[in-house]
């Protein structure tokens, strides 16, 4: 399969800070790519640019060969319908209830759906994660984990084939992490293209087909997961160790850390 998304010499300056400095990377169709790097290196910005949420100052973002920022209105609608984005902080719409947060993407992408169909689909999604009792609540009334999982449901409610995940398991408890990890693996099993930014070694080990290591707004290494985790690039290796951050505490090797059995990871 070809590339779902490719970034060609993408540069972006936010204020006085050069966030992306000539990024060239491709994300393969139907595969899961994990972007890793130290905090503040531009991973989330890269993810948002790849998703077409932030236009770059220069360079191109290609969706199956077509420039995302030159798509027609109809093309953009199709792009958003087939894409889902989970934000690091949830980014739920605070002036809407949980139900409305999930219903709005359906109303936008499927204008022909009846009110009762929308209600059924939202109810089914909420039941799946045990949030059906919170449907009428505003996001402010939800816990951090519930907000995160609600953001996940919102991104997936229209059943996208390309999913962007920005730290999907950050700052949530074990139970919620398990639920989200399970949902991500279901997505992967369905053959969705997943592009994730995460510091979670367990998620990385069980999800990544490919790895992209980013540092100071540049791609250091990119390639198949097995190749990248054995990279000879010292800086990339240092970053992987630093990002995964468990080497010292586990007194183990980077390879062992990433080589965990996926089944172990889910238990």
């Amino acid at each position: 399969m070809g590339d779902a998304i490719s970034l060609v010499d993408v540069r972006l300056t936010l204020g006085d800070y050069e966030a992306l400095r000539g990024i060239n990377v491709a994300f393969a169709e139907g595969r899961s790519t994990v972007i890793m790097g130290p905090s503040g290196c531009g991973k989330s910005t890269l993810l948002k640019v790849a998703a077409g949420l932030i236009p770059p100052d220069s360079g191109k973002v290609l969706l199956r060969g077509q420039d995302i920022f030159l798509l027609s209105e109809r093309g953009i609608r199709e792009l958003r319908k087939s894409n889902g984005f989970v934000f690091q902080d949830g980014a739920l719409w605070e002036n809407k209830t949980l139900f409305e947060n999930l219903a709005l993407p359906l109303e936008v992408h499927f204008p022909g759906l009846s009110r009762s169909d929308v209600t059924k689909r939202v109810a089914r999604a909420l039941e799946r994660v045990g949030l059906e009792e919170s449907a009428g609540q505003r996001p402010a009334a939800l816990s951090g984990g519930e907000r995160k999982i609600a953001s996940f449901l919102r991104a997936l409610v229209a059943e996208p084939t390309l999913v962007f995940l920005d730290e999907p398991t950050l700052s949530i408890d074990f139970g919620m992490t398990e639920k989200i990890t399970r949902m991500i693996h279901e997505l992967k099993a369905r053959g969705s293209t997943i592009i994730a930014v995460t510091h979670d070694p367990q998620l990385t080990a069980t999800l990544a087909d490919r790895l992209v290591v980013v540092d100071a707004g540049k791609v250091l290494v990119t390639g198949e997961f097995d190749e990248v985790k054995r990279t000879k690039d010292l800086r990339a290796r240092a970053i992987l160790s630093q990002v995964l951050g468990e080497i010292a505490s586990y007194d183990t090797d980077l390879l062992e850390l990433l080589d965990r059995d996926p089944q172990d990871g889910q238990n």
Partner: protein
Amino acid sequence: MVATLGRWANRKTRDYAYALGFMFQVLKETVLFVRRRQVAFKVLVLQILFTGVEALNIVSLIALSIGAVIIVEGGTILPRFGQTSLLYSILIVVITRELGPILTAFIITARSGTAIATELGNMVVSHEIEAYISVGIDPVSYLVVPRVLGVTISVMALTIYFNFFGLFGSFLVSQLIKPVPFVEYFRALLATIQLRDIVSTVVKSFVFGVIISVVATFQGFKVSSSVTEIPRAAIKAVGQGFVLCFLANALITLIYYL
């Protein structure tokens, strides 16, 4: 020095270009709003409820007070110069043509302008705007256009309401000073008011509504990443809104007398 001036000019040029682009986008999406099947219709209804309906009390109170002051002052001063008949002209000029639209605009700027700038600024900081884009919703179409339409419709309706209450208030107070029959009072008002007075008030209220809403949404969207920018956006929404409304008021009044 030259470099600083150059950077300042460059920043200003970018700001104006951004503002023009924003206005063009708002105009385009407003035209398309009525043609599209909109999920944003609910946002429009809520905006009219907040800006228009919830401001009725304060507008009534201010309109009654202004009407009362004019009738008391006019009723006291004008007879001294034998110009009692001018009272109705003054009522029409002050309430209908000048104070009605501008005071309503001030009330709405203070209430809704600040609220819109703050709400949108918060949405930018908490990445809610990006979330709208991620699910295929154009923030201008969904968040700005309903607010522009809602505020403009509300300012126009509230200005008419202000006029009615201002004139009615002056009648109530006139009953305490020098009772005038209801029919006689309103017949005199109707004889004084001209079509161009009504056109003037409608045009002003429309222009003020557009100014208030576009400035507030623009300032809300100008917030980039920090919560400390949000109160600044609200202050700018009020300051720029007031100044632009004053300028527009002067311009329309000048055109009225051309």
